[in-house]
């Protein structure tokens, strides 16, 4: 469903960009509004209003282009190609990697109550994992989170064979409650 929303956002921003380009084109060709949007024609010809008009349009153009760019570049990967054997290819979906990360974070017994994971791509086919965690209150955050990072990295590399470049953990909230943290 996440992917569906992303596609929707992409379409919206493309439409917005096209619309603002068309409206900016009115500066070049004033006849554009002659038949379809006659009230807007006065805005282009009136010097005071045309400035606002241009600023608003350029703002929309820039923001939509920026959102398209960010969707494409920093976007979540959908799958990673592992290896091509003589039979065919093996792909692992981002959801699968994320659930491995979640499972290993929870089984690390570091007082994580709930967590969300996000996978994005890095150089040379490696991946980056970002974990957003809600902890219990009696957790030593630095020590237990480094334990979680290590475990996630180790688990993903072992189970999928994909190199994990880094694991960033963000503690978003601390909930009252006592975690069953093993003392080691």
């Amino acid at each position: 469903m996440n992917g569906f929303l992303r596609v929707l956002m992409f379409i919206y921003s493309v439409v917005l960009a096209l619309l603002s380009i068309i409206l900016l084109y009115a500066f070049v060709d004033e006849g554009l509004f002659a038949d379809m949007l006659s009230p807007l024609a006065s805005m282009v010809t009136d010097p005071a209003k045309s400035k606002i008009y241009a600023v608003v349009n350029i703002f929309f153009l820039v923001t939509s282009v920026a959102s398209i760019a960010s969707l494409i570049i920093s976007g979540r990967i959908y799958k990673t190609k592992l290896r091509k054997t003589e039979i065919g290819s093996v792909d692992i979906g981002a959801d699968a990697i994320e659930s491995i990360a979640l499972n290993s974070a929870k089984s690390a017994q570091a007082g994580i109550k709930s967590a969300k994971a996000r996978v994005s791509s890095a150089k040379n086919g490696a991946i980056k994992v970002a974990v957003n965690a809600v902890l219990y209150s009696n957790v030593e955050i630095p020590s237990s989170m480094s334990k979680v990072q290590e475990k996630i990295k180790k688990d993903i590399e072992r189970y999928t064979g994909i190199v994990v470049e880094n694991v960033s953990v963000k503690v978003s909230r601390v909930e009252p409650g006592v975690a069953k943290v093993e003392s080691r």
Partner: protein
Amino acid sequence: MTQGFVAQYAAEAALQVDGVASLVPSFAVALKEKAGVVHEGKGVRVIFSEDSSDSVSITVYPVIFYGKIIPEVAWEIQEHVKEDVEKFTGLDVETVDVYVTRVIEDESKSPSDEEETNI
């Protein structure tokens, strides 16, 4: 020979592999199922190649248990599916692609899981 027929064999072969929990039907197939149409071979896509009628490419969408080494399971799926489909249908299987969509926790496997954390 229809796609569904081949897909059924492929799905059966994939499910026999150790570590495969289930197969995920695609969005369109899930809709079709909701509408009440029976789709044969859920979670497998079969494409007949255009030039020769007896060679197919198969894509499998499995859910794999947490704790299994995914590449190994995937390779096993490829071999198993290829072997079985070729044996039962006589078609030439060109490629078997595996796209792991999800990983779920296996309840029966939890004891060995704890072992790992204690290392």
